[in-house]
């Protein structure tokens, strides 16, 4: 089945120690997103890629970076995790496009729960 896969599902890192979360998709979607979700809150968009074009949200800290080496994979790098970065990180995809062929429905992966000690 086509899907969005996130690894690992649970990640524990130390304060200040860089960490990378990965996302892969078999949907061949153009757009890939990274969200941060804290308990009892809505997902907060960090950034997204439309193909190779990177789109950063204005309030995303510089501590968060992303890479998309190809259509299928996207990575979230947290350069120096702080205690406030502990959260669920969700990857999502959508077909994107414009006009009649566009689709904005987003498919989410299961998420990676990040703990910072």
């Amino acid at each position, binding site marked *: 089945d086509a899907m969005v896969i996130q690894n690992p599902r649970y990640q524990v890192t130390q304060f200040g120690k860089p960490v990378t979360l990965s996302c892969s998709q078999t949907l061949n979607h153009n757009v890939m997103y990274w969200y941060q979700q804290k308990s*009892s809150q*809505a*997902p907060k*968009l960090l950034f997204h890629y*439309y193909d190779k074009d990177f789109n950063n949200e204005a309030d995303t800290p510089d501590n968060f970076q992303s890479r998309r080496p190809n259509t299928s994979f996207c990575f979230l790098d947290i350069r120096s995790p702080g205690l406030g970065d502990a959260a669920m990180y969700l990857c*999502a995809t959508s077909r994107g496009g414009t006009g009649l062929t566009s689709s*904005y429905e*987003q498919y989410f992966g299961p998420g990676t729960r990040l703990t910072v000690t």
Partner: protein
Amino acid sequence: GQQVMQIPQYQHVQEGEDFTTYCNSSTTLSNIQWYKQRPGGHPVFLIQLVKSGEVKKQKRLTFQFGEAKKNSSLHITATQTTDVGTYFCAGINTGFQKLVFGTGTRLLVSP
């Protein structure tokens, strides 16, 4: 910036009772989507509304998009325990590939 608010924040009902969540955007939207997130799970797409005044039904769920395309509602008839979760609306504007999520309504259903 654009804000999307939902009310209520939380609702606890008895199984069989109806439930409604309301979504209000600070700006006019092109489309609105609804997602359901089960406890411990990830958001799952339910539906997209595009036209002003549009009403769509999925079994016991009824979705409505306001005439001004600034508000929406989700109504569940005769709730079941499987309806438990948080319901998010998410607005989108044509040309932008990103959603603005509402604040969410958490639904708890007691048997």
